[in-house]
Every structure is written in structure tokens, then in C-alpha cells.
């Protein structure tokens, strides 16, 4: 029981991170119907930005202060948002009316470019970051086994919850969110009502990228090691989460992220840690086979 609880805590933390990345996949898919395969790379860029910000803060002697964390967070979100905007502008906008395969290939190309860019500029070696946030407390103890909840995990969970709640509010209640949903449902009509569709799409990329950037920052803090290749696996897993929840559905992305995180943590806890990726991706295959619209997605056919 204690062991299970510990795995759930780990899984939920991981799931929140996947959920934040999955939001970007699901929103972009919802609005322009393409899978942005460069999205995992944005997360990787977020991790590197965070690493650099923390190292700079360490030099200045304030990495573990609340201010240091806040500055790193803002810097990471700002920088990845800029990348998200640039990626859409450079690789996708001109392909808006092209066949669906073209932006997909462009996305894969973008992904390779970004990976190699970081590999060349930052080096291929694994980058460590000494723990920034220390401590935590023990929830319960059974014999020698302790259930720990670290401050870092609490911080990640709270920040994830706050971002998801804030983002859900933006989408459901604000004019920007309405414009996004309108563009998603009928872009041509949205334009006829005065909505600048290109700008709405840019905003979507910027928001999705900022959220992925936060996920990158969290991973840097949580695992303490990053390299230029982490975007690939995390990106594919977050994509799996988005498909599991129902691609295009915002609550679906959050739920899917949570489930993938839990599956991975529980599988590593009870079976074999080497096979945890197989567990996560088996879920992708099963969902695609038996419920292609995902848990919260709607079937493709819509009554007009």
C-alpha cells in the first residue's frame, strides 16, 4: 500500500508534466488539424533555457531562492513562447493551404533542425544540474519503507494545476479563448466575423510552447539531467497522452497526461523499469485500435 502510494505520487508528478506538453499537441491539432512534431523539441529548448537560467542564478548566488525560481520560470516561458511563434511562422504558415502531408514533413524537419541546433551549440553530453529545491516530508512510514513527498513534487503539482486551471479559464471564458474555439470549429466563418485567423493560430502556438517550456523546466529540476534528445521521447509520450485523452480535447490532454504518467510509474514500480516505454506506447496502439477518438474526444463525423 505504501509502495503503491509512492508510485502514485511519482506518477501524478510525471503525468502533470506530460499533460502540460500534451496541451500544445491537442490545441494545435484542434486549430489547424496537424500534429506539430516539433513540439517535443520546444519542451527540450525549455529544459535547456531553464538549465542556463539556473546556472546563471547559481553564479549570482540565488538559484534556490523563490526569486531565482520565478525568474527562471518567466525566462523559460518567454523564450519557448518565442520559439513557438517562430516555428509556426517559419515552418507552417506558408503551408496552411498545402496538402496535409507537407506540414507534417515540415514539422519533422523542424524537429531535426532544433535537435541538431542544440546538439551543436550546447554539446551532445548529458547536462547535470545540482538539486535546486531541497527537502520535503514523509507522509507515512511502514517499517523501513517511507512514502516521501518532496517540496519539488508539491511545487510541480501546484504549478501544473494552476496553469491548467488558468488555461482552461482562458479557453472557456475569455474573448481570446472564444476566438480560438471559433477558429477551431469554423475558421472561414471566424474570419468573416473579423477574427484574424493567422494571429489566433500564432497565439495558440505561443501558449502551447510556453506550457511545454514550463514542463521542460520542471523536468530539469525533477531529474537533474537533460540532453538534446529528451524532446523526442517526451514529445511522443505527450502525443500519446493527447491521443489517449482524445486529440483536440483540452481536458482530454490533461487526463491523458495523468494516465500516461501513472501507467509509467506503476509499471516501473511493479514490473520492469526497462519496459516502461513499451507500456506507455502499447496504450497508444490499443487506443488507436479500439477507441480512436480517445477517452474524451468526439467522433470525427459531425452532424451538420
Amino acid at each position, binding site marked *: 500500500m505504501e509502495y503503491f502510494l509512492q508510485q502514485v505520487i511519482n506518477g501524478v508528478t510525471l503525468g502533470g508534466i506530460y499533460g502540460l506538453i500534451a496541451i500544445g499537441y491537442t490545441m494545435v491539432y484542434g486549430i489547424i488539424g496537424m500534429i506539430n512534431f516539433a513540439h517535443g523539441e520546444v519542451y527540450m529548448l525549455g529544459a535547456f533555457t531553464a538549465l542556463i537560467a539556473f546556472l546563471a542564478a547559481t553564479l549570482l548566488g540565488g538559484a534556490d531562492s523563490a526569486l531565482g525560481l520565478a525568474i527562471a520560470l518567466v525566462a523559460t516561458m518567454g523564450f519557448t513562447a518565442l520559439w513557438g511563434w517562430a516555428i509556426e511562422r517559419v515552418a507552417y504558415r506558408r503551408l496552411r493551404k498545402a496538402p496535409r502531408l507537407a506540414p507534417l514533413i515540415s514539422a519533422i524537419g523542424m524537429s531535426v533542425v532544433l535537435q541538431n541546433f542544440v546538439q551543436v551549440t550546447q554539446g551532445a553530453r548529458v547536462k547535470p544540474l545540482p538539486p535546486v529545491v531541497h527537502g520535503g516530508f514523509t507522509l507515512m512510514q511502514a517499517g523501513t519503507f517511507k512514502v516521501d513527498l518532496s517540496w519539488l513534487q508539491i511545487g510541480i503539482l501546484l504549478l501544473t494545476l494552476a496553469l491548467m486551471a488558468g488555461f482552461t479559464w482562458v479557453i472557456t471564458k475569455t*474573448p481570446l479563448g*472564444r*476566438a480560438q*474555439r*471559433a477558429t477551431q*470549429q*469554423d475558421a*472561414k*466563418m*471566424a*474570419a*468573416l*466575423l*473579423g*477574427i*484574424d*485567423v493567422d494571429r489566433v493560430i500564432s497565439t495558440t502556438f505561443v501558449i502551447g510552447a510556453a506550457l511545454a517550456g514550463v514542463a521542460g523546466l520542471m523536468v530539469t529540476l525533477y531529474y537533474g539531467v537533460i540532453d538534446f534528445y529528451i524532446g523526442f521521447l517526451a514529445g511522443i509520450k505527450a502525443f500519446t497522452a493527447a491521443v489517449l485523452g482524445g486529440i483536440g480535447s483540452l481536458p482530454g490532454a490533461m487526463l491523458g497526461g495523468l494516465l500516461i504518467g501513472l501507467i509509467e510509474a506503476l509499471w516501473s514500480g511493479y514490473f520492469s523499469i526497462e519496459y516502461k516505454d513499451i507500456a506507455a506506447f502499447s496504450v497508444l496502439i490499443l487506443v488507436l485500435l479500439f477507441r480512436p477518438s480517445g477517452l474524451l474526444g468526439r467522433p470525427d463525423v*459531425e*452532424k*451538420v
Partner: protein
Amino acid sequence: MLRLEGVESGYGRTTALFGIDLHVAPGEIVALIGANGAGKTTSLMTVCGNPRAKAGRIRFGGDDITNLPTHAIARLGLAHCPEGRHVFPRMSVLENLQMGAAFADPAHFHGDLERMLERFPRLRERLHQRGGTLSGGEQQMLAIARALMSRPRLLLLDEPSLGLAPMIVRDIFALIERVSAEDKVSILLVEQNAYHALKLAHRAHVMVQGRIVASGTGAELLADRDIRAHYLEGGAGV
């Protein structure tokens, strides 16, 4: 208010309009009638910049809008209620109306909303229902109300009677007449239902294969023998 001069347009390499000249004066209702594929819808869409005119000029108010992007044209006070209604299916009736008012003065919103709900009591009943769950007639009302929420100077109405039961068609046309008088909005109306359209319109143009072939007041065209034969009494356009 709106003036098209020698407008040519089409999709890809296909030309659909071969030099259209027409204008709509303030307060006027102008109808475009004609058979399927005559270029009526293309005319309205070209006014909104999608597809863009390949030749000719389009002026709205004092502005040359020929090369403006669609959203910029809409913000000038030109509302388009397109063929097929295009209600946002997974947004509530209220949200659809909010989208209509996205670029209107927020100070007017509550007053305008109240006015629309007074005019369309059915929409008040369904205010929090999703657009996609409304009946065809209700969706048409919502589409018109949404267009009016922007307080447009000109309303483009594309086939408002399409696919609706005859009783509802009569309601819709009565409504268009009321809207034009009460909201002081000019209307450019496209219809296959030529009889209703000609009765309502001050002036009308008949389109055939991308050209305007006859123009006149609604009453003149309604009395014209050729027009009657082609578009009213079991002709191709009915």
C-alpha cells in the same frame, strides 16, 4: 455604400465571375438571383476577400477593400451571413452571439443582446444550448442575429431560405424586412427563392454564368415575362 466595378473572380484557374458591376445604396435591399452555379455566392465571398478579386475594384463606404484581408473587411462594418449558416456548432447560442460582437463596442453588448433575444424569442430559450443542436430555422435566426451583433452598415445574406420549410421561409423574409428597417442596415441578398427575394428587394440583378444579365427594381423583374419563365414558374432557378 458598396460598389463593385468590373469584378472578376474565381477559384484556382477557374473563373466564376466575368466583370460584375453593382452597388448597394444606404438603406437599400438589393437581391442577386439566378440558378445554381451562376456566381451569386462567389460574388458575396469576393466582396469579403475570399476568393480575392482578380480584376476590378470593390469599394465599401469610402474605402477600397479590394485587397484587404477578410477579417479587416469585416471590421469595417460589413457582416456576412454565409450560405449554410455556419453557426459554431460546439459553442452556445450566447457564445455565437458574443463572437458576432467580437469587434463591436462592448458598451453596446447587453443592449444589443437584449434586442436580439426580443426579436428572436427562440434564441432566448436556447441561450445556453450548443449551436449545433438547433434546428435549421433556429440556426438561420442565430446566424442573422450573430451578424447583426456587430452593428454592421451592410449585411450580406447568402441563401437565408436554403433548406427551410416554407412556413419558416416566410418568417425569415418577414424578419429580413424588419431588420433592414429597424437596424437601418443595407442588405445584399442572394437567393434561389426568386419570388420572395424579388418581392422584398428594392432592386435586383439576375445572374447567369458569372454575368449580370438583367437588372431592375424587384417589381419590374417580377413582372418580366422572361424572368418569370426562367426563375419563377418552374424554371431552372426555382
